[in-house]
């Protein structure tokens, strides 16, 4: 920062407090921000699991079956549970922030943030149900 021209006679001695690396533990709002950002760690692990699945798929039926058995083993269940919590919390925070970035207007009139947030949830639930239906019994549907 740039103080006014240094003057030898000044008695000013502003006290500067450096930010601590653990500043986000000081306040629950900051802590929830860090939780929001940390969901990405779990999503990263899950993303890598999916990339490995794609790799196994290209390596033939035997390797693919191995991946399917690995991911559906009871040992992996905690990861799935954690991943579900992470993506739902991510969605919750994302849908809260998105309307404030979009500042949606319909014929010049602002649409309330709550309405846009709910619209996001409805689309998300619709997409989730559709994906699960296609994935579970796609053979009959397609």
């Amino acid at each position, binding site marked *: 920062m740039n103080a006014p021209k240094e003057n030898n006679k000044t008695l000013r001695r502003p006290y500067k407090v450096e930010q601590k690396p653990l500043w986000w533990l000081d306040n629950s*709002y900051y802590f929830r921000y860090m939780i929001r950002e940390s969901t990405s760690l779990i999503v990263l692990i899950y993303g890598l699991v999916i990339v490995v699945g794609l790799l196994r798929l290209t390596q033939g039926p035997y390797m693919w079956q191995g991946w399917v058995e690995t991911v559906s083993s009871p040992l992996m269940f905690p990861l799935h549970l954690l991943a579900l919590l992470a993506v739902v919390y991510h969605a919750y925070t994302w849908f809260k922030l998105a309307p404030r970035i979009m*500042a949606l207007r319909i014929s010049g009139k602002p649409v309330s943030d709550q309405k846009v947030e709910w619209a996001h949830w409805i689309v998300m639930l619709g997409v989730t149900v559709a994906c699960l239906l296609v994935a579970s019994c796609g053979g009959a549907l397609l």
Partner: protein
Amino acid sequence: MNSEHDIPNSSTMRVEVQRYRPELDARPWWQAFDVPYTNDTSVLEALQYIKDELDSSLSFRWSCRMAICGSCGFMINGVPKLGCKSFLRDYGALKIAALDNFPIERDLVADISGFVEKLETVKPYLMREDPSDLDTSVPISRAFNQTPQQLSLYKQFSQCINCGICYAACPQFGRDPEFLGPAALTLAYRYNQDSRDQGKKDRMPLLNAEEGVWGCTFVGYCSEVCPKSVDPAAAINQGKAASAIDYALNLVQLGGDK
């Protein structure tokens, strides 16, 4: 010490105030006072009581007592708030300190000169390009009408009183004091959104910078604590969208800043 809900029947409250006297103290320290209060005693009035009756050496900034001058921002029990808009009745005990993230000049006085400089930097005034408006030898004689719709695009963002509370709530400003910060970026966006303004191209280079909108990670606490409900986090993140469009236009040489 009393817990938060254990307010004693005698109507005095233990108020701890952070002191820092640059000529005497190496670092800030806490001084405790017992302050009498009633249902409508504000934190600012408690400080005035301390200065008038208990210790006249206490320094703090204040002016209007009605949440419009923006002078009496303090950390009140760790939360940045206006002293005049916070009341003792809502607390069990009080700890009052200078606003976070600014250098402490003395006691509760934060040095906000860097923040005021940032406000100037973003050119927070209407700028015109039309030659007829630039002739300063004649007063502007025409009106710049605005529809309610045009007004609504920036009205919320124009309610800022420059109290600096959002800077005390911004960890990115705490991390890097060069970050232009919530209020200045909101003000820049507010003028960019004003139909009467033609100075957007002068402000975009600031928004586009790392120290501009891109220094923000949408922590969002600035909007939570803003005493005027300005929602600076929304303004900055709408500014990100505007800056991203500017970036793309510049990339394909259709406009934008260099």
